[in-house]
């Protein structure tokens, strides 16, 4: 095939994806990135919590949740190294809801500039991103 790139998604627990795809888009710290085959060499940091959208070789789209990661494009191989990553269908909505509630509760009693607040905010952001992705995937409302 003429236009494909190799995608590797690696987390501390496992290698989630290691195969050829047609394209990837993800959120970096400074905005969205769209990576197509033979993209120039690149290195960037991923957003704290975001969605990675993968376009498969047959044009189908797959969503992936990724948190706290880095992206590196070299020799037509895109490597995403993240702390956490899972497919939309792997997300346990009940657990995410619980995490969201916990983060909100924590934030309520904290100084807005304290480190704990920032940490709680980060986990809230992760929970919300997971929730959005999960809802979008199962077609029960959400954004799209």
């Amino acid at each position, binding site marked *: 095939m003429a236009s494909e790139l190799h995608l590797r998604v690696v987390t*501390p627990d496992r290698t989630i994806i290691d195969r050829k795809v047609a394209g990837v888009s993800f959120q970096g710290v400074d905005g969205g990135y769209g990576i197509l085959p033979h993209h*120039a*060499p690149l290195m*960037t940091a991923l957003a704290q919590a975001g969605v990675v959208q993968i376009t498969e070789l047959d044009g189908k789209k797959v969503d992936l949740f990724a948190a706290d990661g*880095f992206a590196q494009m070299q020799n037509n191989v895109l490597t995403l190294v993240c*702390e956490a990553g899972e497919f939309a269908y792997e997300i346990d909505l009940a657990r995410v809801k619980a995490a969201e509630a916990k983060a909100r509760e924590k934030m309520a009693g904290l100084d807005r500039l304290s480190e704990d607040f920032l940490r709680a905010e980060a986990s809230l952001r992760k929970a919300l991103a997971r929730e959005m992705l999960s809802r979008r995937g199962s077609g029960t409302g959400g954004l799209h």
Partner: protein
Amino acid sequence: MANLKELRGRIKSVASIAQITKAMEMVASMKLRKVQAKAQSFHPYTEEIRHMIEALASKVSGNADVPLFLQREVNTVGILGITSDRGLCGSYNSNLLFALRKQVEELQAAGKKVKFWCYGRKGYAWLTRRGYEVERFFVEPALDKADFSAARLVGKALVEAFESGMVDEARLFYSRFQSMIKFVPTNAAFLPIASIAVGQDAKKQNFELDFLLEPDATTVFNRLMPRYLETVVFDSMLQALASEHASRRMAMKGATDAATRMNKGLKKVYNRARQENITKELLDIIGGASAVS
């Protein structure tokens, strides 16, 4: 007669000891397998992080924005010791602590202060017993259940100590898992980060060293750095854990074998004594019968 009864009791207790050590051996080998699987699935992550940091190091070298690189005069050395929580694992802990003690004595002879961080109860007990002060003892989560967030906690504590100037150097003390029967006490430098071999790996992998960096090198580097340190800590934790289980497996195998051997010997003695008794009784009976007739 009392001798026979005593022997019977000993045979029984030795057999039950063998059973227990056998069970412990099996548990340890199962845990070892689990840790090894964990280490295996963790390996690609470490590799990727390392590649990235190597590629990045060339971009930020000579940049004073990264304090973790700065070598300073060493007055105080921080040591993180990783030992097991439980005993019955052969010489695993004592080997490590022996090496640690040697190192500490060397450092103290050179007029340097040493501060300790500790993972694992055995190491903590050892240090406090010898009057060393432990800066922080990580209890939760137990090393057995330690995951990546535990490594983050430990890494952060060390980085904070380094940044605040409490220690001028941080080292990791743990047992590196070499094979099922070999674990080497390892003393690894942690902070400041020694020069990372720039470009060597890249050449091997045919990397293009000229790449886009967004937003900029320092930002990415500062975000990548803590990740890198965490992976180093987590890797050493996994190594230590694997060594512990392998060491316990070996110790328990030895104990089981010894108990089985001992049981065999005891049984022989018991049977001989029993046979002797029977012969004696027979002789008594025959002697009695011939006296009557």
